[in-house]
């Protein structure tokens, strides 16, 4: 074995790729060569570390020095100071990791301390394009164990016993689903992986596939053995080019090592995988639509039953699981159901990955045990709300979910308690909102998304969501009536009970939950014609306070539409009929004389 004395891990996830990690890796390789260090250090391009907002990220081991926002110009300094002379470049360290004069271990940093990484365990740790690195962290041992020591029913029993539930949104028992597919009699069965990831706020499935593709491949092979399938499909959106590429490399390497293909581990079990690209329609994440799309047809849902476990791909029994669900499987097989059951709450076992976004200091990916409270995620892991603003609500479950208000911030997050408060786990988007967010506007944002994404097959969804959106539009323009609020609520319930698929059935949730917890805000829009957060443009008014105005004319010169007039040294005024509410004048005034109402 070649001995290298240091590893330079560069994040090659989508976030860091867009902030320029490729240029940094290139520069690093050039600098190592220039200093004759290329044999002593190994540069490894990994998947996402979870702190994408700080990218590009580079971690140098064995010190564990966590460099953030690295630029190509910084690389030379890292090489000459740190790698050559052993002096860590302090100014580039992620500030959270520095304690007095020492580097804190990453596990001690607030962002990582409360996390428990099972699905993300290898993301940011191994090179996803090198199967041997995956094998080095126990990869494919679970598959080996299953194929050489366990019967299919035994595998299913372990998964059932573990309490694992689907991470794709529904939260259905994974073991039960495997059992149903196993029980279906057929000459041919399939397994499939849902990597459509349509929730606009979520990107955990992408990160897992980019950072640890073999974990999904191994789990699908295990699932294939358990349910009696020897062909699998991974349905992934074409907008994830890095994930698609790494997955392709990983599948090719697995074949080369005989971990996919014929007679794996000399057990007589054959299994192979194919990638299918989706066009990125939200509805294609719905299981029946996904199956039709893999078959090569237009991705439209169909009524269930029959469920895919009975009639799926090409009318054959098909097991469909989400990427993150699969990412837990090998660990459960290796460590046992009891190990997994220890983590989480009574009915929700294990961990969940969340994509933290919105008004939060540490945006990124976090994996926490089920039952962690929203407060812990926001205040401790997420580092709180920026600019000293106040927390107002958190949105989970994306377009199918709802908002959690301040008084419920101590709710332990699991499938059932989120349901109980009118939200849902969904795929794991978690958007934090502060006092500057308007809840009516948020509901409108999600409704706009569903209107766009509705496939149009059934009327309640196609027409109903459009009507809902129109009412919201009316309210945010100041033309709503109190009856509209009641009408809207009624419409929500009728869409929920009559839409054909999950998209339509859950589309009203963002409206219902904001109506429930923030009715006063809706009423303010309707009755007082004001938007309390000052977001809805049609309701916002800019005014100059005459007492504070020094008559400097700065605002008038900046106003793009010439809405401000006055005479130097006396108070200026805004013509509300001309004003387009761009807010420029307010940012311009040095004297705080302009207010937004």
């Amino acid at each position, binding site marked *: *074995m070649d*001995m*290298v004395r*240091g*590893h330079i891990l560069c994040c090659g996830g989508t976030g860091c790729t867009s902030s320029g990690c490729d240029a940094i890796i290139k520069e690093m390789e050039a600098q190592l060569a220039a200093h004759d260090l290329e044999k*002593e250090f190994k540069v490894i391009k990994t998947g996402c570390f979870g702190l994408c907002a700080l990218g590009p990220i580079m971690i140098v081991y064995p*010190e564990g020095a966590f460099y953030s926002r690295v630029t190509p110009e910084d690389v030379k300094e890292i090489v000459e100071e740190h790698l050559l002379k052993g002096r860590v470049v302090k100014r580039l360290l992620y500030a959270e990791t520095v304690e007095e004069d020492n580097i804190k271990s990453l596990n001690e940093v607030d962002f990582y301390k409360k996390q428990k990484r099972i699905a993300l365990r290898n993301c940011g740790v191994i090179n996803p394009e090198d199967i041997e690195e995956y094998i080095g962290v126990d990869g494919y041992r679970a598959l080996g*164990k299953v194929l*050489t020591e366990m019967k299919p029913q035994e595998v299913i029993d372990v998964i059932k016993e573990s309490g694992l539930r689907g991470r794709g949104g529904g939260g259905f028992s994974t073991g039960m689903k495997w059992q149903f597919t196993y029980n279906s009699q057929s000459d041919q069965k399939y397994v499939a992986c849902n990597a459509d990831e349509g929730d606009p706020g979520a990107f955990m499935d992408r990160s897992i596939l980019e950072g640890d593709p073999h974990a999904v491949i191994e789990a699908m092979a295990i699932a294939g053995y358990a349910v009696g399938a020897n062909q699998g499909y991974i349905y992934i959106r074409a907008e994830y080019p890095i994930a698609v590429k790494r997955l392709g490399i990983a599948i090719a390497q697995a074949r080369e090592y005989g971990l996919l293909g014929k007679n794996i581990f000399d057990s007589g079990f054959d299994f192979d995988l194919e990638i299918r690209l989706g066009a990125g329609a939200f509805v294609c994440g719905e299981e029946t639509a996904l199956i039709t799309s893999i078959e090569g047809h237009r991705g439209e849902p169909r009524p269930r039953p029959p469920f895919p476990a009975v009639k799926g791909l090409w009318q054959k029994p098909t097991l469909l699981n989400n990427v993150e669900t699969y990412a837990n499987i090998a660990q459960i097989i290796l460590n046992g159901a009891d190990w997994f059951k220890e983590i989480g709450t009574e009915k929700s076992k294990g961990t969940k990955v969340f994509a933290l976004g919105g008004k939060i200091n540490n945006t990124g990916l976090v994996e926490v045990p089920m039952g962690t409270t929203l407060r812990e995620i926001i205040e401790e892991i997420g580092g709180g709300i920026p600019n000293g603003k106040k927390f107002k609500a958190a949105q989970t479950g994306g377009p199918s979910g709802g908002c959690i208000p301040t008084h419920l911030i101590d709710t332990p997050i699991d499938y059932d308690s989120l349901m109980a408060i009118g939200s849902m786990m969904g795929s794991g988007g978690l958007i934090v909102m502060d006092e500057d967010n308007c809840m009516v506007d948020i509901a409108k944002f999600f409704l706009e998304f569903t209107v766009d994404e509705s496939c149009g097959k059934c009327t309640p969804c196609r027409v109903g969501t459009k009507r809902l959106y129109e009412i919201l539009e009316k309210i945010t323009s100041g033309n709503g009536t109190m009856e509209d609020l009641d009408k809207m609520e009624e419409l929500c319930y009728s869409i929920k009970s009559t839409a054909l698929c999950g998209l339509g059935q859950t589309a009203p949730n963002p409206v219902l939950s904001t109506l429930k917890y923030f009715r006063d805000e809706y009423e303010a829009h309707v009755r007082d014609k004001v938007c309390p957060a000052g977001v809805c443009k049609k309701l916002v008014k800019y005014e100059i306070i005459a007492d504070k105005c020094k008559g400097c004319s700065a605002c008038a010169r900046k106003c793009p539409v010439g809405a401000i007039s006055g005479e130097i040294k006396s108070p200026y005024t805004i013509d509300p009929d001309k004003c387009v509410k761009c807010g420029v004048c307010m940012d311009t005034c040095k004297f705080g004389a302009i207010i937004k109402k």
Partner: protein
Amino acid sequence: MKSLAELEAIRNKAKGSVNLRKDDNAVRIVVGMATCGIAAGAKPVMTALMEEVAKRNLENVAVTQTGCIGVCRLEPIVEVMVPGEEKVTYVKVDPKKAAEIISEHIVNGRVVTKYTIGAAQ
């Protein structure tokens, strides 16, 4: 892949390398590599240490460098930190001594007292 043994062989080969990335209780061997250390021959010492670790397939051993330790006249200096034990500082190390430090101290757990800073002073 035909057998678990075959998988195990690859795993063992790759494990040592991936282990370097865990910041747990690894044995750390630190070489003083500032200007005077390099002038005194720290680089061949570093190479010898690394080769020895590789040859013996030692897991959980990290060889790293540091800047000025402060006693230039005793360079090359190698510090060995075993979790739970006191740091041992070896001085005037050459490649031969480096190999001995690995085999005696790291593998057999016996400090090579004659090369330590205590013996030199």
